């Protein structure tokens, strides 16, 4: 029996070894980026340089999809909604440089870019929504390593956020900065995640407290018990109502209640 299948085993195994060795080499090559040269990456679209307008008040929104307004009615978002709240005559110019999916590292890179300098320098209020994509990037199987990954991620986030705030302050010492806190779209599902998220928000609050004219806008408790109405159909991004809630919270924190 075995004598008969022996040649088969030998052939099959040897052939597989060849395949696997090839695969291994390919994997190494791919990971070292050797397969793809810089030229193959499509060139970025031409930048359309626009000058910031010289309106009475300039609001600049930076950050991720929540800054961008994903889930909201077209062309709205926190910035527009806030502008509408404080000034119904719409003399306020809102510029949105948010990039859906951006992480704190993307944001740090974005504020460094020379083409964005003018927007930052001209703004009176800079709304920043960042961190959500850093946090969702954490994947781990168990609690201990999750905790470790969380700390690691937060440290990176903090570094990037500090760099971002410094850059903004260098370009514009006067502007009011508002950091939008994270809400938890999965609130009831995972205790560990909620705890991490609260810790994240708390530490972000500390960073805000350390800066001049920098406010932290909480959203966690506001959203917690109203996920069904405050979240959009994708169960992740805020809905129009959600955005309105954030904008009103922003108004309350910055301007108080008349």
């Amino acid at each position, binding site marked *: 029996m075995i004598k008969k299948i022996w040649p088969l085993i030998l052939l*099959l195994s040897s052939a597989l070894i060849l395949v696997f060795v090839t695969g291994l080499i390919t994997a190494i090559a*791919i990971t070292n*980026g050797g397969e793809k040269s810089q030229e193959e990456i499509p060139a970025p679209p031409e930048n359309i340089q626009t000058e910031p307008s010289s309106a009475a008040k300039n609001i600049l929104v930076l950050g991720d999809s929540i800054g961008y307004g994903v889930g909201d009615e077209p062309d709205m978002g926190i910035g527009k909604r806030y502008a509408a709240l404080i000034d119904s005559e719409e003399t306020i110019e809102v510029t949105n440089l948010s990039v859906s999916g951006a992480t704190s590292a993307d944001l740090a890179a974005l504020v460094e870019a020379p083409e964005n300098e003018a927007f930052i320098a001209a703004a009176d209020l800079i709304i920043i929504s960042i961190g959500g994509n850093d946090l969702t990037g954490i994947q781990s199987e168990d609690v201990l390593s999750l905790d470790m990954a969380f700390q690691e991620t937060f440290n990176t986030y903090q570094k990037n956020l500090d760099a971002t705030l410094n850059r903004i302050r260098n370009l514009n010492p006067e502007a009011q900065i508002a950091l939008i806190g994270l809400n938890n779209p999965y609130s009831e599902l995972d205790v560990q995640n909620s705890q991490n998220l609260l810790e994240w928000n708390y530490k972000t609050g500390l960073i805000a407290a350390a800066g001049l004219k920098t406010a932290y806008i909480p959203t966690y408790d506001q959203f917690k018990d109203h996920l069904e109405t405050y979240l959009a159909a994708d169960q992740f991004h805020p809905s129009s109502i959600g955005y309105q809630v954030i904008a009103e919270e922003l108004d309350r924190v910055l301007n108080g209640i008349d």
Partner: protein
Amino acid sequence: MLILIRNEVTKLLLKKKLILIIGLLIIFITLLSYGQQYTYEKNIDRFENFSGAGTYDWKSLATQRLNDLENRLDSPYIPDSGIASTEIEIRQLRYFIENDINPITPSAVKFSVDFVEQGISLLIPLIIVILAADLVSGEFSTGTIKVLLTRAVPRWKILLSKLIALILMTTLVVLIIGILSVLISYLFFRQWGFNEPVATGFSLIDGQLNADSVILVTRFQYSLLIYSLTWYVSIVIAAITLLISILVENTATAIGVLMAALIGGQFLQFFLSDWAIVKFFFVTNLDLTRYLTGSYQPIGGMSLNFSIITLGLWGLLSLMIGFMVFNRKDVLV
């Protein structure tokens, strides 16, 4: 030499190890596929109840996401570094929409890749340990080492034949893992998923995950890559197991030592970021597949190259010590 190798393969086969391993795999894979299928259905249900929308319309969500991404590409404000990864995601989404496949639907090949990705640092090494732990120590504990070593064959040839037989069988086991996980999970998912595009090729630049060199491959190609890495890990584990098997003269001890190393190594991983020496331990380098997925926390100084070289050194060193010890050893059983 070929005859010696055939003899060793014969022994491995007649010990029915392979049947035990196949049995274990069938149980694991069936449970996991069922679990995944169950969770998937549960998620769909929950979503439908939650949104009250009746049916779960992934297609409109995916289309919305696709449009969103396409708009983003047109936006002048996104940093250059984001473009490549956005394009990758767009191409993936297009594939799903065009082929009418829900991206979160489990497929057989996806499951098979997930299975080895999860198993590469513990389950698969353990399977290799089962296969290899008694290769030499078993001969010592039954005394058959005496009839084996009193033939007119030099000792190094005997050990080499054992090593080659082990490599052949390990390779077969990796193939069996692949075939079983694809076939069994297909029974649950009814979806092969060979052609689905997968992003891979994340590289580390200055300690940051860099997506510039990311390329799209089909899931079949991707699974070949993953299985190649799994095979490499298995071979290294086999070499280390062979060494332990030579050193301890007792199969139970050999399995114990290796389990302790594997499980202890998992704990050691928690100190990875603070304690530099831990990253030179073989167990902390087993999870090679994470370097392809890009969903990991980069740890200073650890990359695919580093891990492959570290594992390779462990394997070679084990073999060298193994051959040295085996050649000089007094057989006193």
